């Protein structure tokens, strides 16, 4: 068990609910991942459908923590209004705060993100800000009241993995008290493991599982990768060396090797 915000959960994988081939596969993939937290969004009720209600029923079936997002917002005002609506709709003060500044890379707008964070923290939200790996921004988000930071690994949906491990490592080392979650850009289980090996508290991903050929199997793979990475971090990874060192003891080497020794 570990604590995220004020809740105790088992899994260190947060998973998205979008892009799955079907609602049934979504539910099975999320269960296979063993994630305890699922991200969701709010959209306009269509004039001819009841999709919102069907999705609501699936969430109830899953019975795990819900993390609503503000995806698609481009200003602090839009994000704040969306967060307020999400709090009422999903009955949670958790909000994954996304304020997009560049539609090409889906890079967060750091200025609007900070503005929205300040307001939402003042209103009692637990803000999970989707941010870049910029240390100054991260420090200001913490000062605004965040306990959790979610720097990107790579642009959303690219599957490129950790584009700047150095910056992510620096964040971990310099912000030891913050809950750090790599959000976005994960493509392979090895990427998720790498983030956990750096000491990140958790990983949030969606496309890597939902767009896989077999989302249920990939959900399980991601869950295991996150576990493996965390175990490795806790165990302590050895320092890299520039020269080879034999792993088999040299003491007692049989006599026929002695002839070749200069």
């Amino acid at each position, binding site marked *: 068990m570990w604590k995220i915000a004020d809740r105790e959960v088992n899994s260190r994988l947060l998973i*998205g*609910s*979008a*892009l*799955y081939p079907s609602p049934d596969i*979504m539910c099975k993939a999320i269960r296979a991942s063993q994630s305890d937290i699922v*991200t*969701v*969004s*709010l*959209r*306009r*009720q*269509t*004039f001819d*459908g*009841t*999709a*919102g*209600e069907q*999705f*609501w029923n699936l*969430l109830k079936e899953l019975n795990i923590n819900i993390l*609503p*997002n503000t*995806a698609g917002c481009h200003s602090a*005002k*839009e994000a704040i*209004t*969306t967060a*307020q*609506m*999400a709090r*009422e*709709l*999903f009955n949670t003060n958790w909000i994954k705060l996304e304020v997009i500044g560049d539609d090409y890379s889906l890079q967060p707008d750091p200025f609007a993100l900070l503005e929205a964070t300040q307001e939402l923290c003042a209103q009692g939200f637990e803000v999970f800000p989707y941010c870049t790996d910029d240390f100054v921004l991260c420090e200001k988000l913490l000062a605004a009241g965040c306990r959790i930071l979610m720097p990107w690994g790579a642009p*959303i949906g690219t599957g490129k993995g950790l584009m700047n491990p150095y910056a992510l490592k620096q964040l971990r080392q310099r912000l030891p008290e913050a809950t750090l979650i790599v959000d976005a850009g994960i493509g392979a289980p090895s990427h998720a493991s790498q983030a956990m090996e750096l000491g990140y508290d958790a990983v949030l991903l*969606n*496309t890597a599982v939902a767009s896989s050929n077999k989302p249920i199997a990939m959900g399980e793979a991601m869950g295991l990768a996150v576990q493996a990475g965390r175990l490795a971090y806790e165990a302590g990874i050895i320092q890299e060396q520039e020269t080879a060192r034999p792993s088999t003891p040299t003491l007692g080497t049989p006599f026929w090797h002695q002839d070749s020794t200069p």
Partner: protein
Amino acid sequence: MNITLNGKNIEIAQYNTLNDFFSSLKEEGSALQVPKQFAVALNGNFVPREQYDKSSLQEGDELELLVPMQGG
């Protein structure tokens, strides 16, 4: 009067409160089926559920009715 509901211009009767308007959406043949779970913004501002009885619609208002949806 005319309002914009979820980005679509519609003509509606005069209603005293948002609650009255939402009740009208439950009637057969309404412009939009009102779901069980939804949240509301009026002209870009969130309207809490307990305010539905105290909020009214004016000509040209922009009403957003949002529902739970998949997200990443």
